[in-house]
């Protein structure tokens, strides 16, 4: 297994279980399951024991490995410099071993099969990929400045589609030149990579790269931070080199400069950092810039923010496989409780996966009366409509 030489170096000190301010557990898998086996240190030692044949490839072992949602909190907080950079890579390598051995939880198997057969995790037809754009005037990419890449959730999930349309509307309203590929693109593959199916990831990435290069794509705006991460960081190894932006990075400087005609009612807002913008790519400020530039917004931070944000649990394929379950210790539910504690009426997100997961959590926590999840372009559109 790749990175097996680092497994024994974990001290099991547990810094990785917490955010930097120590306020509560911050590893989503550990939070959801509570047993030490699900903590970053526990999985390091378990992997070592498994390689040493002290532990067999049981269903539970598979569940433990695939409960890691690749949030990167452990990488951020681990107390050993350098070693920590390889933590998540070791967990992904462990998943890869299981994938190669064909021993993965059924939900992971089904999800990967869908990616393989249909180029998306839902098993929907590829031709329906541009369904979100049917009632919008969005061009096919040709000589536009940017390719707009909606990703799987933006393309197929009904809530994701709403967000996708809202972002596209705002980009258009601000004169951004972009086009899409619709049915010609496949999944960005970020979750496939996170689930350790590296060959399938390579295939998906190469498919997209072929399409992008054939149309001489240079700049890409992604809807999803997950796609942003894959295309920006991982496509390079397959020869895909582009200037990649998350839509918040494009919109932030534009919205910052806007002026508004009339006042809008105040709105108390807090913001949930997506792991693939924040910890994985160091992008903490674009969404905050948008929110703080909009009139009427009273911005308030949660206790766990930026590098210390609690993941919603939607990464690592868990959005589709639901390994973490929906119990009270589910990280999205914990996150919603934390957001509600700030007395914010809106929890802003910049990721369609976070939006869907956190909206479910609002219902599960019965907090609908107190807090609503909104994506930042939706907030911007709503306020701009009122203010102009």
């Amino acid at each position, binding site marked *: 297994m790749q990175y097996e030489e680092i497994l024994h170096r974990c001290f099991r000190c547990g*810094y990785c279980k917490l955010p930097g301010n120590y306020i509560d557990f911050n590893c989503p898998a550990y939070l959801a399951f509570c047993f030490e*086996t699900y903590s970053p240190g526990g999985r390091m030692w*378990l992997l070592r024991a498994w390689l040493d044949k002290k532990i067999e490839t049981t269903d539970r072992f598979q569940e433990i490995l695939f409960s890691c949602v690749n949030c990167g909190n452990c990488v951020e907080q681990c107390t050993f410099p350098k070693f920590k950079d390889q933590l998540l890579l070791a967990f992904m390598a462990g998943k890869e071993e299981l994938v190669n051995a064909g021993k993965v939880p059924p939900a992971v198997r089904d999800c990967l099969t869908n990616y393989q057969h249909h180029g998306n995790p839902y098993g929907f037809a590829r031709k329906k990929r541009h369904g979100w754009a049917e009632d919008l005037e969005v061009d096919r990419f040709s000589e536009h400045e940017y390719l707009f890449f909606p990703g799987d959730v933006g393309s197929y999930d009904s809530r994701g589609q709403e967000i996708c349309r809202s972002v596209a509307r705002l980009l258009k309203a601000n004169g951004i030149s972009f086009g899409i590929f619709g049915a010609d693109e496949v999944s960005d593959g970020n979750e496939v990579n996170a689930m350790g199916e590296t060959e399938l990831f390579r295939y998906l990435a190469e498919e997209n790269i072929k399409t992008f290069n054939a149309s001489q794509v240079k700049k890409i705006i992604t809807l999803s931070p997950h796609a942003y991460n894959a295309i920006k960081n991982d496509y390079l190894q397959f020869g895909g080199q582009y200037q990649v932006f998350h839509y918040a990075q494009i919109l932030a400087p534009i919205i910052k400069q806007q002026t508004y005609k009339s006042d809008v009612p105040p709105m108390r807002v807090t913001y949930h950092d997506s792991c693939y913008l924040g910890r994985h790519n160091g992008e903490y400020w674009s969404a905050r810039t948008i929110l703080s530039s909009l009139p009427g917004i009273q911005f308030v931070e949660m206790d766990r923010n930026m590098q210390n944000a609690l993941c919603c649990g939607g990464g690592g394929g868990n959005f589709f496989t639901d390994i973490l379950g929906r119990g009270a210790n589910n990280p999205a539910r914990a996150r919603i409780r934390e957001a509600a504690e700030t007395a914010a009426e809106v929890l802003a997100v910049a990721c369609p996966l976070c939006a869907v997961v956190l909206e479910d959590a609002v219902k599960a926590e019965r907090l609908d009366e107190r807090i609503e999840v909104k994506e930042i372009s939706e907030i911007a559109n709503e306020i701009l409509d009122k203010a102009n």
Partner: protein
Amino acid sequence: MSGVSLMKEIVEKLVKIVGAEFVSDQPEERYIYSMDPGTMPPREPDIVVIPGTSEEVRQIMILANRDEIPVVPLGAGLVLSGLSRALKGGIILDMKRMNRILEVNETSRYAVVEAGTSQGMLQAYLKKHHPNLKHSAPDAPPVATIAGNVSIHGSGHLSHAAGFHSDMLNGLEVVLPTGEVARIGSCATSPYWFSRAPLPDLAGLFLGWAGTTGVITKLAIKLYPNYKYNDVGIFVTEEAQLIPDILHRMTGTQVAEDMTTWMTPKPDWARGFLHCDINFGANTKDELIWKRNLIRASVQEYIDQKVAGFMPLPPAMKQPFLEVPARTLSRFADVRRGGGFEYVGAIMPVDLFPEAYKVGLEIADSLNVNYSLGSRIIGVNHCMMFFYAYAFNRADPADVERAQKALEETNRIVVDMGGIPWKAEAPAQKEIIRKMDPNMFDLMNRIRAVLDPKGIMNPGNWEED
């Protein structure tokens, strides 16, 4: 009933008490909970349970007592000396879900917490809700629990000012091995958890016993002023025999919160020097300067003689020395790129410092182990916790054995010197028992027999061969 079917029945009953998601008899949990990060060999539990309330703990104890199943309370498992391994199998009671902070009394400066509350959680909670208060945190990683630490007589960042963490305990709620729930301290008769006095002090029945007398489910600890301005000074000498007097003089000023010493061969500039860190705080800058001057004046004679002096420390370099807990301590586990260290923490009089230091160097030299030595002053020089930390590579059994040998040797010498290994490994407990007044050990056994007639609490600890 066979052992296997009894355990199956116990699992079913535990599931009824805490819910299926918080009980495991799976090989993965049994493996991970069989050891801690130290050198003690693994011992597998049969079952791991994560209770959520005192009532659940009570029901678990009644069940375990009825069927004579061993129960081992577990905080964060960071004691390093293997005290929360299931030496005789049975149930590990992982307390982490019981982590509610129940009350903070700002005026009387105490906090009531559930036993699984971690040091880090309380620290963060106070910072947010009661910024003028703090508790004495150990340098253990922040997931370490308040109860685990108090119950082993831990020490930390206010130990010079206020003693062992067990001295800062105001009261307990415990579930006895037979299932009764008892309150100890003022909370036994009052809604307030303000002190253990003036009642007979039964808290001692649960302090220093390595979880062999009951399960702590709630506790109250004292809080202290959190100063606005904080500073650290590092006093350095090459002469170990001066240290007891240096500490005596500096602690005599009673203005610091924490005093620790450290002696390490790495980094190179530190080799051969004995460093004494003095942490102190104040409400105003003037007060801080006044305290700094008092400490300096107490050791001016040594500075004038040029046998010791304060290390110049630019403000940026002070940060790691002001960090609570100090992350650098955990990093010692990576010196051999092997994820392990364990230490003997010897409680002893400060007079023994030079000898303790000499012994540490000799052991490290003779066994060729990576070492780090140091101490924390408890009270106004009333005693110290002298630590001998040895790093090891857990992937190399010979290296683990070398560290184990160094720890054993250190424990033995410490006892002979007149010190007492703290949170001692089960073999070191036997060393202590050999030296102990037999009537004290007899009394310990009689107390245990009353509290735990079936011997189910963390068996294998505080026992003779």
